[in-house]
Structure formats: structure tokens, C-alpha cells
């Protein structure tokens, strides 16, 4: 933020200030009680009614599901912002080397399988929508790097539908359960697990597509 090539005395004073801040905050941290369980007991107590077995997924999609919904909206809006700024600029598409061309044929199906596994495993262990989405996104980036382009048929509203699938489904489920449980995002116990899986599946898919769109750095097919 300061102009180019800040003057040396400015650098020194900023450094001094930041060291002071660091020291004060470190001292505060050391002052915290060494042993504290945080909300772990409460989460463990409610695990039975959360519809999943893994605490982090339970917190992410059930206890603090509203946060996750908004956070997926953040990702979607960032993609929107990127699209509003510039048309898609595909990576330099001179034909990829032999090794790079061969790589996606082996890796992409494996990564898709991996994403599916992570999604499924999210209910019982570390995994879930975001990790699956990230792996899908990585597969997409790999394809884009090796010259694959989104077919034109998929660049119109279908792509946009895919992008909003995650948030859209979350909103749909959040409102649909209100008559049943009387409160927003209150999954009725018997179907809680399946609902969470449904949301995670679509969320994973749309996060993967969004990350791929972000890598493109603009709106595919838009003219500037």
C-alpha cells in the first residue's frame, strides 16, 4: 500500500511495530490456559443426532451448516466476479509434450474415483465435499493444461447451472426441511445422513467446476 520502494526508515519502523505486535500477541497466547477442550464435548454429545459419524463433517454440514452455505456462496460470487472482469484466457495451448499428453489419460479417471471415495468417506472419516471438490478441480486443471476445452454446448446456461448446483441444493434442502422440523436447516433425524450426503455430492461437483472456472480466469465464450 505504501508507494514503491518504501524509505528504509519506514521499513524499519514498520518492522519494529510488527515485532512489538508479535511479542504482545505471543505473550497473550502463552497466557491462555494450556488445557481446554473447547466445544469438543458438546459436539461429541450431539454426534448421535447429527446424521454423520465424523465430527468435522457434522460441524461443517449440520451444526454450522449455515456458515458452509454462505461460504459456498462466497466461492460462487468470486467466480462471478472473475467472469465479470474478463473473458476466459485459456493457458497457452501449444500442443503439450508426450508425457503431459499421456498423464491425464491415466490420472483423471483415478482422481474422479478418488473424489467419489473422499465424498463417501466424509460421513465416517476425514473427507467430504470440499476435499472431493478440490480433487475434481485439480483433475479439471490438469485437463485444461493439456489442451482440452469445454465443449461449446456446455459453455451456456448448463455450465451456470452446474456452478450454482451446490448452493442451490443447499438452499433447497434448508428451506424444504422447515415444514418438517420447524426450523431452517433442521434435518429430521431419520433422513439427516442421506440429506447431508446429497448436499455434499452436489457441493463437491459444483466446487470442482467452480475451481476449474476460476483457473480459466474468465467467462468461457464471452467476447470482450
Amino acid at each position, binding site marked *: 500500500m505504501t508507494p514503491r520502494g518504501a524509505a528504509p526508515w519506514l521499513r524499519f519502523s514498520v518492522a519494529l511495530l510488527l515485532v512489538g505486535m508479535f511479542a504482545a500477541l505471543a505473550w497473550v497466547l502463552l497466557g491462555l490456559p494450556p488445557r481446554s477442550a473447547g466445544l469438543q464435548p458438546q459436539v461429541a454429545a450431539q454426534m448421535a443426532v447429527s446424521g454423520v459419524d465424523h465430527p468435522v463433517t457434522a460441524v461443517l454440514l449440520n451444526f454450522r451448516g449455515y456458515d458452509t452455505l454462505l461460504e459456498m456462496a462466497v466461492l460462487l460470487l468470486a467466480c462471478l466476479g472473475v467472469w465479470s472482469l474478463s473473458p476466459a484466457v485459456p493457458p*497457452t495451448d501449444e500442443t503439450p509434450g508426450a508425457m503431459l499428453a499421456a498423464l491425464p489419460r491415466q490420472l483423471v479417471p483415478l482422481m474422479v474415483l478418488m473424489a467419489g471415495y473422499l465424498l463417501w468417506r466424509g460421513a465416517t472419516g476425514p473427507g467430504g465435499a470440499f476435499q472431493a471438490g*478440490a480433487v475434481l478441480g485439480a483433475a479439471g486443471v490438469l485437463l485444461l493444461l493439456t489442451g482440452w476445452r469445454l465443449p461449446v454446448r456446455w459453455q451456456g446456461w448448463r455450465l451456470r447451472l452446474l456452478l450454482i448446483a451446490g448452493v442451490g441444493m443447499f438452499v433447497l434442502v434448508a428451506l424444504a426441511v422447515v415444514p418438517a422440523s420447524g426450523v431452517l436447516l433442521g434435518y429430521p433425524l431419520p433422513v439427516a445422513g442421506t440429506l447431508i450426503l446429497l448436499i455434499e455430492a452436489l457441493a463437491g461437483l459444483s466446487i470442482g467446476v467452480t475451481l476449474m472456472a476460476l483457473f480459466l480466469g474468465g467467462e468461457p465464450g464471452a467476447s470482450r
Partner: protein
Amino acid sequence: MAIATLLGWALDGLLMLVLLWLAWRVLACKGLFRAVVLFIAFGLVLSLVWVRLDAPDVALAEAAIGAGLTGALLLSTLARLDALDAKQDEDASS
């Protein structure tokens, strides 16, 4: 038992130092490309730290999104910036 905790401490100490050193190098080294590559390494070491802190979910997310995707975005932006510089130099010279 003492050796295991000792080893654990050593590993944690090493990870912390490497983390801080990588962060400093990312922010202070000369070339931008070098900074981005070091940043990807920083992301991977950070995933290790998450594993040490018993946070597997975060480790996965960090590795895939933090190091992987952010790295890819940074590299592609860097490539486009260099392409822009090349075009500007060529405009300037022509």
C-alpha cells in the same frame, strides 16, 4: 516413551522453523517464479503441520486447495503476466 516424545518435539520444532523460513523466503526472494514455487512448498509443509495437529481434514483441504490449486492459479497468472510483458516490450520496440 521419552524418545518418542523427544522425536515428536524435534519434528515439530523442525516443522515450525522450516515453515517460518519458507514464509520469509517467499516474501523476500528475488524472482517471482521462485516465490510461487516456494509458496507451493510452504503449502505442503503446512499440510504436514496440520497432520501433526491431528487435523486430517484440514491437511487434505490444504494440500488440495491451498498448495495445489492456489499454486496453479499463481503459476498461470505469472505465465500470463510474462506474456503481457513480452507483448508490451514488443509493442514498445516496434
